[in-house]
């Protein structure tokens, strides 16, 4: 682990964007205390005021402070996407490990099912889930997680297939081990690295999908702010208050870009061969 950080620290881009990503998570965790104004407070005397010393990013049609809303939205986004990512990992990885190790008809059926889920556009899938569960936070988390879980099933099954051929797995069988012991003791420790990489690499996808859902009004509901939903509102006032779009758009770009580059850096650190080929 210390070795990982030592090698990661050599990647300048990775370190910079890693720090940026950590900053965003810091903002998310402390959102309640660092917002300059109440993000929910309506002030009809100050609607559409342009950026100023009191309101750095201006105010919206209800006079709410945009900066404070962006900060609160960061918290909402981080919460929703982290939970959705965890949901995808916790459902996809055990299924992938199990079917990869056991093989047979159960593997064929599962893999065909994931293929079916993968050809559905994510938004379609999410709409179905949200329609069933209603546009609650939990609904959004389940929708986003379910959309990505097949990816985790696939990648987990793939690495499991290669690890189960290793002789140390056969040695454990020869000692009388059952499948649960092998999955927990041999398969999981040896596949966790590629799974972690996959999780970091998919994080920006979660963020984009979460924003897309709320842009379409299927995500987190007003008045709770979310980047996509803020962008949707800003779009209606693009001519008279163009500054409304800056805050949520910048936050979205920074988050997605950082998460992407950090994912790349983690992958290269864990698998130096990839870097040489570049």
């Amino acid at each position, binding site marked *: 682990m210390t070795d990982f950080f030592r090698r990661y620290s050599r990647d300048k881009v990775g370190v910079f964007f890693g720090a940026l990503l950590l900053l965003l998570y810091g903002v998310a965790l402390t959102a309640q205390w660092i917002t300059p104004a109440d993000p929910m407070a309506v002030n009809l005397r100050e609607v559409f005021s342009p950026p100023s010393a009191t309101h750095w990013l201006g105010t919206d049609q209800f006079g709410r402070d945009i900066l404070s809303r962006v900060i609160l939205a960061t918290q909402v986004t981080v919460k929703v996407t982290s939970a959705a990512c965890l949901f995808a990992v916790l459902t996809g990885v055990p299924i992938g490990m199990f079917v990869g190790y056991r093989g047979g008809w159960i593997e064929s059926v599962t893999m065909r099912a994931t293929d079916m889920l993968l050809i559905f556009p994510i938004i379609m899938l999410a709409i179905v889930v949200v329609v069933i569960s209603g546009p609650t936070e939990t609904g959004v988390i389940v929708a986003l997680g379910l959309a990505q879980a097949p990816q985790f099933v696939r990648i987990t099954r793939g690495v499991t297939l290669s690890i189960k051929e290793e002789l140390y797995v056969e*040695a454990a069988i020869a*000692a*009388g081990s059952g499948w649960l*012991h092998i999955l927990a003791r041999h398969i999981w420790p040896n596949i966790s690295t590629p799974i972690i990489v996959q999780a970091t690499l998919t994080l920006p996808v979660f963020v984009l999908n979460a924003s897309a859902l709320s842009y379409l009004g299927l995500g987190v509901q007003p008045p709770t702010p979310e980047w996509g939903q803020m962008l949707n509102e800003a779009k209606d006032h693009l001519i008279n208050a163009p500054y409304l779009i800056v805050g949520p758009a910048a936050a979205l770009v920074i988050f997605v870009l950082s998460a992407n580059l950090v994912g790349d850096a983690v992958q290269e650190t864990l698998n130096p061969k990839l870097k040489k080929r570049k």
Partner: protein
Amino acid sequence: MTAENTLLEVRNLRKYFPVRKGLLQRTVAQIKAVDGVDLTIRTGETLGLVGESGCGKTTTGRTILRLVEPTGGEILFRGRSLAGDTDTAMTDVATASPAQIKLLRRDMQIIFQDPYSSLDPRMTVGEIVGEPLQIQGLMSRSERMARVLDLLGAVGLSADHARRYPHEFSGGQRQRIGIARALALNPRLVVADEPVSALDVSIQAQVINLLQDLQEQFGLTYLFIAHDLSVVKHISNRVAVMYLGKIVELADTRELFGNPRHPYTEALLSAVPVADPDFKVERIPLEGDVPSPVNPPSGCHFHPRCRYAQDVCRTEPPAYRAVGQTHFVSCHRADELSLRGMRSS
């Protein structure tokens, strides 16, 4: 009937792998990797199993341990009663229930060829060697640790190696770790699958010596699978030669090397390079390659490459029969041919 000192008796063991093709994965052919193997292993001996790649020797070893499900045949093994040292009657490993198999695994272990793939890189050496004990639920944590240290000592490693990870060790040391793991449950039979062929010459000798010392110390019985005839000759009491899924000859080591009765054994012996520039033998050329086990030749599988083949060899599969007290061969012409073995120098 089974003799008193028989530890393992294999009767007509078969393992066919299906060849699947197409969208529906229909079985279009069978690879007859093991095709009717008979052998017995006596308590305390080393039986060498030699043959070229693809002859089925590795599959035979794996099937005996039920790491590969047999297609047919019997694998009779004399286990120990749960209490300890009294022998039980012969159990058929081929049809044993999962619970029986788990118990049998205490008495049958395996050493692998590849010292890299056989050790989990995420586990310490201590965890690796102690894992069979943990799986079988034997001993407390501290007893296990003590046992691990004993085993590491027995294979020539030191106690402080237990906390290290496999990548810190060389190939020969890794093989020692694998051997310690195989001995953790105090087995009776150890299947050694090419245990030295991935090692350098000088390390090979260390591991061979170690295996012989451990056999003496723990009263082990080995099924020693290898392609290197000089190693097999050195370590085995008896040797079986495999060709295309069948045993073609089995005899005491000295008898097999000095007085082979199967033409394949003769050709194999003549092909081994001898580390002596003055040792010139006329090589018996074996034309062509080993045929595919999907579609083995008719009659005697060896006939297309055999220089003594006659009509009967092309049509009739030869019986596997005794040609001496302890010499078995599967060749129509075994009685009339006079074949050349290794002379002593």
